[in-house]
């Protein structure tokens, strides 16, 4: 391979690697910084210790907000899947154009600015004299994750062969049985990936939750955001984020192993 021929390939790999490094630099900094022993952020860490992790796991305040985040994410993912899967079935099979207009509405939360929606939400709650409770937060998060769910589940339904449903009917299976025994198992991988994805999007939301969650029910990212504004870059917070990153990474790798996770990404955006 003459060097002249090899050169463009090498250049591409080098540039691609640098961009990837730039993309992952904050994550590397956060994980690196979490092992720092000192009181302030330092990456590469001056002295390595697990002090931050011990402090993190014993801090009641953060643990509580972590629990809150997990609770909201779980509930909203469940409600989202209960609402989105049937919606996807209907969207896949509908023939009238109005329903497709509804689909663009479901996609709106990705495009429309979160801050605008948040201000509107807050005023509605003020107007209706209701305070930011868990139920409202769950509904709001369900709306946040719907676009991702609809996109991923919808895509896995597109490559589902509908004659299977006709075949099942001809063999005597009523519509409900057909759905649960034939359609659902075949689109299950899309649903699982959609749910995992929605869980993480809901878990990491800041802007909307900052506005809507009531004072006594702060989720973890909001707590981190508030802490960053007042107490600065506290390494203990980095420890939490490092744990989250590791968890997210392992879920992604597992997801890749079992459900060809990356196949769904191309449809996600």
């Amino acid at each position, binding site marked *: 391979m003459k060097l002249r021929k090899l050169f463009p390939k090498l250049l591409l790999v080098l540039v691609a690697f640098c961009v990837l490094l730039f993309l992952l630099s904050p994550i590397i900094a956060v994980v690196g910084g979490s092992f720092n022993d000192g009181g302030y952020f330092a990456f590469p860490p001056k002295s390595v210790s697990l002090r931050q992790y011990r402090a993190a796991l014993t801090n009641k305040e953060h643990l509580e907000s972590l629990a809150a985040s997990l609770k909201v994410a779980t509930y909203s993912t469940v409600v989202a899947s209960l609402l989105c899967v049937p919606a996807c079935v209907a969207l896949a099979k509908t023939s009238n154009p109005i329903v497709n207009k509804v689909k663009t509405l479901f996609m709106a939360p990705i495009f429309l600015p979160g801050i605008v929606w948040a201000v509107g939400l807050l005023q509605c709650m003020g107007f209706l004299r209701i305070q930011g409770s868990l139920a409202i937060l769950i509904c709001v998060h369900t709306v946040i994750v719907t676009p991702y769910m609809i996109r991923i589940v919808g895509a896995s339904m597109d490559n589902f062969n509908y004659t299977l449903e006709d075949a099942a009917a001809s063999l005597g299976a009523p519509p*409900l049985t057909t759905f649960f025994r034939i359609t659902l198992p075949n689109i299950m991988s899309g649903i699982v990936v959609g749910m995992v994805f929605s869980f993480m999007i809901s878990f990491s939301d800041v802007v909307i939750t900052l506005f809507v969650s009531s004072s006594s029910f702060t989720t973890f990212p909001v707590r981190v955001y*508030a802490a960053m504004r007042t107490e600065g*870059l506290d390494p203990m917070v980095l420890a939490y984020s490092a744990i989250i990153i590791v968890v997210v990474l392992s879920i992604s790798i597992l997801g890749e192993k079992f459900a060809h996770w990356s196949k769904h990404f191309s449809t996600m955006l």
Partner: protein
Amino acid sequence: MKKLLCLLLALIVLTSLTACGEKPAPVPSSDPAPGKTTEDEANVDKPFEGETLVVGVWGGTIEKVLRESVVEPMEEELGCSIELVLGGSSDRVVKLYTEKDNPSMDVYGLNIRESADAIINGVAAPVNPELSNFDQLYDFAQVGGYGQSIMAYGICYNNELVTEPITSWKDLWRPELKGKIAFSNFPGSEGAAIIYVTAEAWGLDLENDPDAVFAKLAELGPFPFFYTNLDELFLEIEQGNVHAAAIFNSYSNDYIAQGFPCTFVYPSDPGAILAKDTWVIAKNSKHMALAEEFVNRCIGVEAQTAYAEEIFFSPCNKNVKVSDEVAEKLVYGDDVSSLVTMEWDVITENEEEFTEKWNRMVVMAK
């Protein structure tokens, strides 16, 4: 098809019910009838048994002292449970205004300006003079909410880099300090204080000619940054990016204690500005009696002394006695009278206009 539909609806109703039915601990369940428990003769010694009071307060050292001096003893004696919600005062103010008819918190720890505004705007209950410890407070601590601790807004500077000691607010305008000064952002009480000080120090009329004040302030610029957290500020002072910062005495005491090369000074003309952490009770709080009991204990001698001795927060209670060595760190005794009381309403009234001027002239100062 019908079966599929109702199955789905049932599932949704079920999940949302479990979501709000199973109340997680932190979300306060609004107590059905506060009055009922007090008449209950059975446990007269624990009048507030079963009631939950939610208090919004700053975290860190303040929370620690409050728990030891007020929260634990109260839960012991009255049988109620007190839940502390930590965070900055600006986050609490948002909740106070947006949840005014159905507040999720009962007692709010705010700064001098926010508490005064809250009462004027009718979202917080006016001060109740019948509290037993009320009359022990300094007079300025009895107005615009219940004063908890006094703070003096002065200047803290890096004594290694600033050779010639700073004595008055005007010293900030020394040429060698230009571009090396940091203060907190406006709208916010510290930001408001520095605007007021600039007007007073240079004899400018804030009400009729605010532009001159902001122009004067802009002369100090460009400002390295507007600090929101203290760790960072003192790191920047230590490294010499910032030579002097307008800040509260209580905050800088902590960092000076940690060995930062700084000196805090109560500057002259017009002198250090009086500020205070203040308690207000939400107007529509459902635990008014319990809230007033909590505030009464906070402004009592015992709690105020704990604040002074443990975290050097100057007491608002006149009867608090502390050793001279502690007193030296506090705004105590006759120092209190030397503090300048700021009239906030000038700033409160045209807060919006001043915000625009601040953003355009100060933030963008060259």
